[in-house]
């Protein structure tokens, strides 16, 4: 086709026309930044104008954090729970340090599970994540009750169910981000 318009529309390789098409490597910046930024943005989601009567929004920061960690063991050092958790505490409204502690413990727990597990699949990851989310939510409620008067534990049930059902979707999202992260 020598039609000029068709030649404009023809897809081109972006920029590096003279780069090698073989043996390309991923951008190291993108590899490190994408998981970190996705967790931080998910932690900040509670600042969006989402009005709920009770605690209903799943702890998105924790879920993205767990999804990355379970999908790619070793993506972050074991101490990564502390900085991510403290960042989440700024936006979640929980007492400061609550997620810092629980996420650190979650990271250690996953490390122990990893060292004992023989085989892992998606169902197991889902189960591990759900148990960790439930424990983190109950711990968060307990920390709130130490500082202020707090409601009974049944208030968390809708949030727990929603988080458990929502987790596979978060894993899918992280897997998409992962393929973008590792694309050359």
């Amino acid at each position, binding site marked *: 086709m020598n039609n000029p318009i068709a030649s404009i529309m023809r897809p081109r390789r972006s920029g590096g026309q003279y780069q090698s098409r073989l043996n390309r490597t991923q951008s190291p910046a993108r590899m490190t930044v994408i998981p970190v930024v996705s967790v931080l943005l998910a932690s*900040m989601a*509670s*600042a*969006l*104008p*989402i*009005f*709920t*009567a*009770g*605690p*209903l*929004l*799943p*702890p*998105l920061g924790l879920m993205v954090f767990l999804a990355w960690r379970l999908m790619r*063991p*070793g993506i972050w*050092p*074991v*101490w990564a*729970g*502390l900085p991510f*958790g*403290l960042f989440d505490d*700024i*936006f*979640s*409204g*929980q*007492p*400061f*340090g*609550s997620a*810092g*502690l629980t996420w*650190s*413990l979650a*990271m*250690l727990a996953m*490390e122990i599970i*990893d060292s004992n*597990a*023989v*085989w*892992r*699949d998606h169902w197991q990851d889902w189960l591990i994540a759900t148990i960790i989310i439930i424990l983190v939510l109950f711990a*968060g*409620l307990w*920390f*709130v009750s*130490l*500082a*202020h*008067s*707090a*409601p009974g534990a049944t*208030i*968390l049930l809708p*949030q727990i169910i929603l988080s458990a059902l929502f987790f596979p979707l978060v894993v899918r999202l992280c897997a998409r981000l992962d393929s973008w992260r590792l694309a050359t």
Partner: protein
Amino acid sequence: MAPPSNRRPGYSRKAQFGLFATYVLAIGGALFAALLLVVSIVDPKGFNALRTAGAEITAPVARFFNSIRRSVGDLAENTSAYLDAASKNAALTKEVESSRQKLNDAAALKVENERLRSLLGLIEESGGEGVVARLISTSASSTRRTATLSEGSNKGIEAGQPIRGPEGLIGRTISVGPTTASVLLVTDADNVVPVMRAEDGLPAFASGLANGTVAIRPINLGVNPFKKGDVIVTSGNGGLYPPNIPFGLVLDKSDDGAIARPFADPARTPYVLTMPTYQPEVVAAQEGGEDGDAEQAE
């Protein structure tokens, strides 16, 4: 996928010590977080500055999405309003007529009320005008029920001011940043509001249940006079919340009182009004005496 066996990173001593160091750091990090948690439990207001900074950073995004949310909501409302305009017009005209009558009665009552108050020698602090602000987000994932206001100390909002919407009481401010303020909603378990039954002034307390409802407990325990449909208003005790702000509707009787739903739902309240503290000197005296929350000193 089987986990990679990265437990022992080869024979390099340096790498082995490096791995060991990350475990030490992780456990140290958990202990550090526990320490921060203890500090924030002992002094809940200690980390307010950080939280305020976080709210300030995310406020522009929240404002943007909030304006979209409102314009979409307005669109739906405006469209449905056109559909039954004629019948609504007739109904409203009738309603205005009856309201006018009630308004006249209320004006007369107000005059009488002021006269009686002046007889009693009550002086009401009616500080400056209230500030109109928007609620831009709530703590949707936490058991703490707080919301963020779109205005802060730039408009003269202070910590500890009552906040109300058109329908009723919303809560009170707990921390203030330059352009945002954090509001403790009445549905938070920590927010205790002195209230009374509107029809007979039966005094009670309301505390949140964190699920959109509040528990009403009468001061005189033993009798449970509440019934479904009772209207609850603030009583003005404690000096923080002004009296006679609509508060909630009793949904059901409970063992030691009643369960009520606040009239003002933050999700359906785009604009709120900050009010001056009702009797600042009473609140100040209570805070000095107990060093706690104003209405809990009651």
